[in-house]
């Protein structure tokens, strides 16, 4: 089998695969042209990271284990795993909502910034991979919250800074749109 044959056949099969994948019916979405600015202004799960990190402090579990309450420590571990998975679901949901908003925005814009569009695409790929990776680690019992306490302060300040910066932009943008109010 020559390199040329391999290249052409694989490329053609890849193209057919992409065609079939892209032809699947799209998932229903909750964001629309009418409500996408409201979605932007909604509360964000990412701002709750410090509380989540605080709640997942491994000290409690260690204390229970050292005092011989292994069953309670195990229950606590399971609860924490469930909380982290739920939080991950919410983070992903929020990420996908933001992506939906960006798509609506792109459809309505007279011009797109290629860099920003590609950046978003790359972020969504990275996020998807990291999310799946983390979920599998959690399901396999590899608990990732041992260093949460250490991270808590760092995440808190980061969330606050970005939150302040982005809220300002969002408010200005909302004031400047020429949309009639939704009926």
């Amino acid at each position: 089998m020559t390199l040329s044959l391999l290249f052409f056949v694989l490329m053609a099969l890849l193209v057919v695969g992409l065609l079939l994948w892209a032809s699947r019916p799209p998932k229903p979405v909750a964001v629309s042209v009418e409500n996408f600015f409201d979605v932007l202004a909604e509360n964000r799960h990412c701002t709750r990271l410090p509380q989540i990190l605080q709640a997942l402090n491994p000290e409690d579990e260690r204390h229970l284990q050292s005092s011989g309450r292994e069953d309670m420590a195990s229950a606590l571990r399971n609860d924490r795993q469930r909380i982290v998975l739920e939080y991950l679901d919410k983070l992903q949901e929020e990420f996908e909502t933001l992506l939906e908003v960006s798509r609506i925005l792109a459809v309505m814009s007279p011009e797109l910034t290629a860099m920003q569009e590609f950046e978003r695409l790359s972020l969504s790929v990275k996020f998807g991979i990291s999310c799946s990776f983390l979920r599998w680690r959690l399901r396999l019992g590899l608990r990732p919250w041992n260093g949460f306490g250490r991270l808590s302060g760092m995440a808190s300040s980061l969330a606050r800074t970005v939150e302040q910066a982005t809220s300002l932009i969002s408010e200005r943008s909302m004031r400047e749109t020429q949309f009639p109010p939704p009926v």
Partner: protein
Amino acid sequence: MLVSTGMVGLLHLHDILWLLAILLEIATIALLARKQLSRSYPFFFSYLCSVVTQSLFIAYAYYHWGFRSEMAWRVAWGSQVPVILLRYLAVVEIIRKTLGKYTGIWAFARGFLSGAGLLVTLISLLFSKGQWQWVIMNANRGMELSIAAVIALLLLFSRYYRLTMGRLNRSLATGFCLYSAFYVINYSLLEKHLGEMANFWNFLGVLTFLASLLLWISAVGRRQEVERLELPRMISLEVYGRVSTELNLRLHLLNRQLGQFLSSEDHKQ
């Protein structure tokens, strides 16, 4: 003996399929004209007309110079040039109809799809044989692969941005893409044995083209009325710039949070 009987049978079947394809092409042209789609899809209409003309042209060449003559071979492949160009224009027409109403996306996608199409054609030519006799055939395969890739990217674009793509446009694009992809596979697999397997190669080519024609004719036939052109609401470039920056910041934040979960695990190890 068995082989020669099989080849004769294939030759007859190929002739029947070829005639069937010409009849279906004429039927699609008539249907497009009757539904007044020849004006809204001028390149697709011209492409189908060129395919019918090419079939008659090749039939004359084979009759006049013989199936195995070099002259017939040159005429057949030479006539492929305008057909493939019209094919490409018909695909551009479908892309424009799908993305054209979204000003920003159209401007963005135009450059991206053109670049991707050109790149695929050039890479295909690099992988092809160097002899001049193969230039048209290799360029043809390169353009077919490029057409298929561009259509797949168009559908990915439409899916990513959740754009509405009419049933007719989707069927036309799918037909073009499937035919082009199978053409590339067919040509690549039989490239080394094209001389002795020309009939089988032609047979597979006509068969895949028939499948595309059936897809097109069914889509054109089912089209009841002119699709309503829903223009999207527009926002100013400034608003796009600001909100887009904000969205990317927030996406970065979420990604960073996820990174923190992962790095906390790494610290543990």
